[in-house]
């Protein structure tokens, strides 16, 4: 009995490793590859549905010519002005939020330490509101959102008194920080005299309605720069998960790995918030599902990114096609579903006695 157990430990299956020179080595696991493939297909299918379904949808037979730039006028407008940017922004924002969540959850060693739970996304939206509506022109909106996110995280870090180490304190302080940020956003909105439901809904719930290619450029720039950085950090973070002493002994330099990861995570979440508003719970849920499906340790950056992109574009497709008079902001849908998941997660955590 014990002999078989030792045998299986002694000969672990070592996955093949992808190496780029001396500075990047990522293990390639068959399960992750299959999962990634399925998710890519799922994202493509969602994208196809987003472009073709509904009153404004492009007829499937016209889709290919339109994508190649040879479509009719109406299809062309739908693709370039309505559905296209929305889809592209949605995919990228979902991926950014999910990677941000994956990094935060790994650094805090707790699934509840997500940017949307600890007040980062609300802080970013407060920054966006301040520099977008109250003092327009001083800073570009994404930079303003970044300032807000940093202020919120500094408040959480100082407020807990124990840094980012106690998840339950982070959550409680995060509740206070989000409440204050959202109150600030409401103040700015009322002051700016913009009480239109749409503006409010975007800033408070997160929405992908009426996105344009500028938004797409912002979020994709962030993704292209920051997700590779996250990948570079992921091996060190995987070691940090074992505890600081072991990680340091193995050369992971846990403190700097953690600080860099938090910077990258704040950048990604902020970019997503500045184009889509504080869409809640994607950052919490996507890395969790990805982790469970890929069954591997560490932050699972790529799987999380794909899962986030899929979840957000799917949620947005649902909000577009649900039979209501008015399209809901996508954040309302993710808040309902993600909130239920958060409840499940909490119960599971205190069964284990983590909180």
């Amino acid at each position, binding site marked *: 009995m014990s002999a078989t157990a030792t045998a299986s430990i002694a000969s672990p299956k070592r996955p093949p490793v992808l190496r780029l020179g001396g500075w990047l080595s990522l293990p390639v696991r068959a399960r992750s590859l299959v999962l990634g493939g399925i998710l890519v297909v799922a994202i493509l299918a969602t994208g196809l549905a987003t472009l073709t379904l509904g009153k404004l949808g492009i007829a499937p037979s016209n889709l290919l010519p339109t994508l190649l730039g040879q479509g009719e006028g109406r299809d062309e407008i739908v693709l370039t002005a309505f559905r296209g940017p929305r889809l592209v922004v949605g995919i990228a924002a979902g991926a950014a939020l999910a990677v941000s969540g994956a990094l935060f959850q790994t650094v805090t060693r707790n699934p509840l330490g997500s940017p949307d739970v600890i007040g980062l996304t609300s802080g970013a939206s407060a920054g966006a509101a301040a520099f977008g509506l109250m003092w327009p022109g001083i800073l570009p909106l994404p930079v303003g959102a970044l300032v807000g996110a940093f202020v919120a995280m500094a408040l959480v870090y100082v407020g807990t008194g124990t840094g980012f180490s106690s998840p339950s304190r982070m959550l409680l302080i995060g509740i206070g920080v989000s409440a204050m940020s959202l109150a600030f956003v409401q103040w700015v909105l009322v002051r700016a005299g913009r009480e239109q439901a749409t503006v409010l809904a975007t800033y408070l719930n997160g929405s992908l309605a009426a996105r344009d290619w500028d938004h797409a450029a912002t979020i994709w720039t962030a993704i292209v720069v920051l997700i590779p950085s996250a990948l570079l950090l992921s091996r060190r973070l995987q070691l940090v998960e074992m505890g600081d002493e072991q990680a340091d002994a193995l050369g992971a330099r846990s403190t700097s790995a953690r600080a860099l990861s938090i910077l990258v995570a704040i950048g990604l979440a902020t970019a997503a918030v500045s184009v889509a508003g504080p869409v809640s719970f994607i950052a919490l849920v996507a890395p969790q599902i990805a982790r469970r499906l890929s069954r591997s340790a560490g932050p699972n950056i790529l799987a999380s990114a794909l899962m986030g992109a899929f979840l957000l574009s799917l949620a947005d497709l649902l909000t577009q096609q649900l039979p209501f008079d008015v399209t809901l902001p996508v954040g309302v849908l993710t808040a309902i579903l993600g909130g239920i998941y958060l409840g499940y997660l909490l119960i599971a955590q205190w069964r284990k006695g983590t*909180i």
Partner: protein
Amino acid sequence: MTATVAPTSAGISPGARRRTPRLAVGLIVTAGALVVLVGLSLAVGTKYVPLPDVWNALFAPGDTYADAVVASRIPRTILGLLVGAALAVAGGVMQGLTRNPLADPGLFGVNTGAAAAIVTATALGVGAGTSVWIALPGAFIAVVIVYLIGSGRGRSTPVRLVLAGVVVSSVLAAYIQAVSLTLPRVFDAYRFWAVGSLAGRNPQLIVDILPFVILGLVLALSLCGSLNALALGDDTARALGAHVGRTRILGAIATTLLCAAATAAVGPISFVGLAVPHIVRSITGADHRWLLPYCVVAGPALLIAADIIGRVIVSPAELMVGVITAFVGGPILLLAVRRMRAAA
């Protein structure tokens, strides 16, 4: 020797008796501050009415413009009084019952539960407007769900209950958003109410919620002694002759009544129930026989002050009072969490 030390009535130590005059004076001063704030609430706004004119408008009303302005501010001021007292006392009782420094009807999802019930009823076309009778079951169900999630298997810690409350209220808040954004009829009615606002409420509401608030306050104040005993732990409380189970049930009834009435009138307002007992406790200490009466006076003072600030800072527009209380309450939550030592 023993005769001099032995307390004459339940639990009053000589030290406490020495504090009594000081606390009584403090209560009178707080009440005085509340009267001033009520006066300001009638005077301040888009159209400022000088205080002497407010006095005239109240006691020798004519038909001048100033009189009309003051009259229009009376309902929101009275609502502020009732709702502030209700929420603050509900928070104080909750903190005592659960021995939880983070208890707040808003954080525990009670107010959002009541709000969700009202929005549902309006969407379905049941019941007329914001009735307390519709809010009550919503508030009650939310309390039960939060306690079930928060205390399922094992001891319910302060942190668990708050987190459970956050889950329940975030799901319900998203539900309220979904319903009100899809049904324009509901949206128009609840756009401001859903954030918590004293402005533009029907004066009839005051009459509607008055019996609930009075009943809840009387019930809560009658529990002061038992809450003091409960603070020592269930076993000690029982040994001292307190009815632990009965106190819990009566306290839950009182808080549900108070929260449902307050939410039905002005929408879900968070943090008043958290902040006021914390501020008051720094003056009175943990004795509920002083804590709750102070809450009755200080709750309305905070809410009316927040309402006045909301009218001034974005003049000529108005900021909903729930926004101001969130901004005041957030830092107090920070302080409360930092004070919790081993609990987290």
